[in-house]
Every structure is written in C-alpha cells, then in structure tokens.
C-alpha cells in the first residue's frame, strides 16, 4: 500500500536583514495510516513542517521540497484553489493557538456547523444534532450552552476541544494536530485522544501529533521524530523515546519534572548558541 504522505527534503526559508534563514532544513519522512509524533524545543520548526503540508506557510516564508505527495497527489503543483478543496475535507490541522484561530464574532456552534457544511449538504436540524454530538464527544458536558458562546467566553481547554471538534467533524484522512491538548487536564486529554485514536483505527486516518509533552507522545504515538533547529535529529519507536540516545533528546527528557520530584532545580538546555541571535 502506498504511504499516505511522502515528504523529501522539505525546506522552509525566511528572508531576514542578514540574508535568508532556513527554519526547516531538509526534513524527510513518510507517513502511513499511523500516529507520528513530532517533538522538539520551541522554534525547532515543528509547526512550520505541519503548515508546509497544507501549503499554509505565510509570505515572506517559502516552503520547497523535492517531493510532497499526499495519497498519490503531488501537492507542490496544486493551485491555491485545489488546495482549498483538500484542506478540511481530506487533511485538517488543529492549530497551536485556538483562540487565535477561532472567529471571534461567530458562536462556537456556528463555526462547527460551518466546518461541517463546507463539505456536505445537510438539513438544518441534522446539522444542530451533529454539532451537539461532536461537542459531547470532546467531553463538553453542556453542548447546548457552549454552542451559543463566543470564543472569549470559553475556557482555555474548551477552546482547544472546539478546535478539535471542528477539525474532526469532516472526518479527514490526515489530521495534523499542533499542541492540540496542552490546555487540558489529563483526564479530558485522555478521552479526547481516544476519539482521535478511534478515527485512526476505524477510518485508517493518519495522524501527525506535534507536542511538547514527551511523556504523552511516547505513550500515545507509534513513532516519533525529534527536531532541533529545523532538522530531524533522532527518530524512534514511540515506546522507546525514554531510551533515546541523542544528547539533545536526553537534555529534553532530563528537564521534565516528575510526580515524585526531589530536585531543587531542573536542568535546562544550554542555549548559548542561539541566545546570540
């Protein structure tokens, strides 16, 4: 079976006063109908990699690749109009900053309904039922009330769950989830991840899961890429992340506090290299 996604030598470049800088530098990977985690410190290029797949890198940034294929479709030659038909319906992305990505003047219910209707015609009644059912499935206990709220009236974690609901309702083939659960308590987080998992198993959806939470990614994904300054420095099976060997990955692991923490100070990465920038 051909892979769902093939990426070869992806680069994302930004012009700066001191010349061009590559914030993604030659990233290559393939993705099947599986759960791929991407971890790495802030600024390492995780979100830019995700956005490149949807061709959503904003100017003046530029993304180029030797190969960028989704389900056999060469994305690099698709027009903006053709990409719009793919986005949402076939590939969707939960953006890192939910409050920023939601429309502030539309209610939560209207926005989820819109996500559903761009890809399917349905009678009004059924739309409402589907919206409420979707909110309930992301563990929002009073969907009728929440559907009527505006984005500034929901909590941090509710905003994230609304984004997830919007991205899952069209049942895409590939979901790119950028820090989708960072504002959720662990219990709701586990339940929301189960819903995503269900789509991976039932529909064969592929998942790219970008996260700062190494423990979570290692217990939830199949495979992990570790990124540092735009490059993949290590790749491993998810269950083996805690035995990673690269010094950078080891540094990240050491800085995570533990439930039975006794250290008075946490070790941090030596950033002197890029602190000069």
């Amino acid at each position, binding site marked *: 079976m051909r892979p769902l996604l093939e990426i070869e030598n992806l680069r994302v470049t930004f012009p700066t006063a001191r010349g061009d800088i590559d914030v993604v530098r030659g990233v290559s990977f393939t993705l099947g109908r599986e759960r791929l985690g991407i971890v790495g410190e802030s600024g390492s290029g995780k979100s830019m990699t995700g956005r490149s797949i949807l061709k959503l890198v904003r100017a003046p940034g530029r993304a180029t690749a030797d190969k960028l294929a989704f389900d056999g479709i060469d994305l690099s030659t698709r027009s903006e109009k053709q990409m719009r038909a793919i986005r949402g319906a076939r590939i969707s992305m939960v953006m890192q900053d939910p409050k920023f990505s939601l429309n502030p003047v539309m209610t939560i219910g209207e926005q989820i309904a819109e996500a559903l209707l761009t890809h399917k015609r349905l009678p009004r009644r059924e739309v409402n039922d589907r919206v409420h059912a979707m909110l309930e499935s992301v563990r929002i206990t009073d969907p009728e009330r929440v559907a009527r709220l505006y984005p500034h009236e929901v909590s*941090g974690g509710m905003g994230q769950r609304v984004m997830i609901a919007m991205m899952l309702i069209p049942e895409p083939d590939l979901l790119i989830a950028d820090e989708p659960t960072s504002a959720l308590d662990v219990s709701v987080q586990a339940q929301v991840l189960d819903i995503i998992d269900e789509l991976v198993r039932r529909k064969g959806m592929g998942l790219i899961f970008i996260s700062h*939470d190494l423990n979570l990614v290692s*217990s939830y994904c199949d495979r992990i890429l570790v990124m540092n300054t735009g490059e993949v420095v290590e790749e491993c099976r998810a269950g083996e992340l805690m035995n990673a060997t690269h010094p950078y990955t080891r540094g990240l692991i050491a800085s*995570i*506090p533990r439930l039975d923490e006794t250290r008075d100070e946490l070790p941090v990465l030596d950033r002197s290299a890029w602190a000069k920038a």
Partner: protein
Amino acid sequence: MTALSLKDLDISYGDTQITHKVSLDIAEGESFALVGESGSGKSTVLKAIAGLAPEWTGEICVLGKARGHGVDRGFSRICQMVFQDPYGSLHPRKTVDATLGEALTIHGIGDRSARVEEVMASVGLDRKFRFRFPHQLSGGQRQRVAIARALMLKPKILLLDEPTSALDVSVQAEILNLLKRLRREQNLTFLMVTHNLPVVSFLCDRLAVMRHGRIVEVAGVDELKRGDLKEPYSRELMQISAAHAS
C-alpha cells in the same frame, strides 16, 4: 499571616453560576496550586481575585483586607496576574520596554528606566531585548516578559494561570526555576493554576483539586508525591499522570 483568603465564593457570568462555595486560605510565602477539570472554573477564580470577573458573592481577603468587586489600583500593587495565553497576553505593537513601563506610568512611579532594567535582570532577560516586539521573541522569552510585567509593581502575591503549559519542557524548566528563585528572593506568595501534577510537585507546597466549580480536595504536596490523594477524582488525575511517565 494569611496572604489570600476566599470564603464561600460563588462566581457567575450572567445567569450561569460557575463556582460553588469556593473557600481557601493561603499563607504568606506559600506556593499553592489549583488543579482540576478543564472548564471547572480555575481561571475564573483567579479572575475574580484580580477584579476581572466582578459578579461574585462571598469574601475575598488579601493580606487581611476585604476586596471589592471591580479593578482596584491599590490592590493591583499587591497582587498581579500572569495570564493563561502567553501568545495573546502581550500587545503585539508594544516593545518590551513599553509593556514593562506602562504600569509605572499608570501608578505615577518614577525612576522608570532603572526599574525596567532591574526587573528584566531579575527574570533573566538580557538588555538587548528591551526594545524588541513580541514577535521577535521566542515563546519562553515572551513568558519571561509576562512575568516581568507582573513583577513591575513589586507585588506580594502572583496569580499564575498555567504559566508553562504552552512552553517546551526545557523552557518550562527555565521558567519553573525562575519562579522558584523569585519566590525565595522576594518572599512571594503564588496561587498557580496548572494541570501538570509534576509541576505541582516541583514548585508547590499544597494543592486544591477542582471539579464542576467546587473544590473536592485540598492536600499537601507530600501526599501527592506519595500518591496519597483521597478523592476518587484526584486519584484519577494522579494515576493518569503516573501512567504517562512510566
């Protein structure tokens, strides 16, 4: 002395009551965590204390003085809040200098330049960042600016709403070390919302667990570290956290 005391706090937005009889006593110099279910009202409690959610009944006392319902200038010199969203909470067109200096101007405090530099140094921000805009800073640097802004008026109490949940683990470690040091040096009191129990273990003395607008359990951090929380809901949170780490 009690730094912060909440008694039977019921907070509402319009017709919807969000919290039910929330009561807490936090000692001066203590670091106290508020954890629990997403949407249970944790941010709302902090907002009520900060004067940003004015519809409440009950009592809020800060350093022995009852607080009113609105924004209160004298109060903001004692108690400051760091918001949940590090990307949205800084004004995109204000430099670090403008962001930090603003509170001094509002409160008519002089010696602006020296105060800005002093606070930047205390949060570990190099002077070269002083005239940068938020988009020219990394996530961790932005969060340092947000903490620095809260420290400008030399408050006694910091209300921290998930100060590290949007940060990578290494930057999180820097911010947690920073908060620990600031608390020691300035004898600050923390009330911190987080859903990360290991962060509680590292930084806090006690925690309260919230669900559906109520506090279901208050415990010491040693009980958390030993896995000795009592309520079924607290135990569930603890067990899921422990399972991820193994």
